[in-house]
């Protein structure tokens, strides 16, 4: 009887210890990923004042050992944001809606015109050049980030290197 109780206590203690260890590990992992996912050069392309769509671009760096997925994006003042990729297929340029954007371990994903981009749909008012758009990004593992993306023509960013656009 005593032995049985002892065993049960031991088992419970082990379980609790193990459980909190896993929880700590999980917490630790999130923190690490948060530090190791970096967003560089976010920008929103300036568009005509009656535009129904805008495109947001950036570099997402992943310095961790695990692949990370961008799951969704959100911003106040828009009907919704979608993850898209422009693809050349059957002679046509296609906007293909994506369920997520993959950022490889120790790699980066570049969002740029003619490629991966975040689509900002139906703005309440179209931001002007020089404005800043705040975009919330949600990654897998519960990580989220807010980026401040200035609105500008591609021109400024490209300088004389027009090939950067493509």
């Amino acid at each position, binding site marked *: 009887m005593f032995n049985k109780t002892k065993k049960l206590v031991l088992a419970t203690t082990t379980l609790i210890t193990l459980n909190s260890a896993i929880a700590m590990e999980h917490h630790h992992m999130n923190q690490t990923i948060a530090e190791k996912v970096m967003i560089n050069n976010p920008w929103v392309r300036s568009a005509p004042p009656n535009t129904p769509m805008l495109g947001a671009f950036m570099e997402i760096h992943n310095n961790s050992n695990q692949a990370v997925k961008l799951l969704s994006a959100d911003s106040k003042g828009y009907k919704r944001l979608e993850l898209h990729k422009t693809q050349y297929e059957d002679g*046509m340029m296609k906007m293909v809606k994506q369920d997520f954007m993959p950022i490889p371990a120790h790699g980066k994903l570049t969002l740029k*015109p003619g490629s991966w981009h975040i689509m900002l749909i139906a703005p309440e008012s179209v931001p002007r050049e020089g404005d800043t758009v705040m975009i919330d990004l949600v990654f897998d593992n519960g990580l989220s980030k807010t980026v401040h993306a200035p609105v500008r023509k591609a021109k400024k960013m490209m300088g004389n290197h027009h090939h950067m656009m*493509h």
Partner: protein
Amino acid sequence: MNNKLLSGIGVIALAIAAFYFATAGKDYQALKKQLKVSYILHNPDKPLPEFSLLDHNRQLFDNARLKEGWSLLLFMYTHCPDICPTELFDMSRLKDIMEEDKTANMPSVVAITFDALRDTPEVMKEYITHFDKDFIGVSGDQAQIDRLIKPFGAYYERVVYDEKSKPVILKASDELPKGALEKGYIINHTAWIYLINPKGEIFAGFPSPHKPSAMAQDIKLLMHY
């Protein structure tokens, strides 16, 4: 005697025609070799169909408008998040480059919508002139636009999403399902830019992606030919 004379004239006429045809063909070959980002599409035997559309000031835009000089023509739509604004931005950069170059003349830029339903002349005016005040937006009857794009080899399809968020492809001739206008739709489309000669004929084409500085070089060669 008369018959002989006639056939003689016929032979000479044929020889002259053959000579011109051969030289024209040869010169295109020489020109083709110099082109970096474009393809000659000129076929005078296949003129554009007669069309009658509206420019962004609701003025008639028909074949005659393409005979006023050289034009760069592209097809687009304003709900386009990526490719169309990129193309129009590239055209504004091309205009800057061509205007700086004293030996170049910038053709007029004409943007015709694939999506007349949403892109009225008023919508086109605000959208197109944002990129450059001289650019001309064109809209009008969808059936005429659909007919006009064919000789360019241009085509498009509309994409709507059903209740399960699955994409449904609609051809140009398919009707939009109910609620599509409210929910929105995107258009997959070809993205060439075409150079139209002052006879209103398709002369050359530029596939995407477009490099304005390389385009400027080719356009100069094509226009000075």
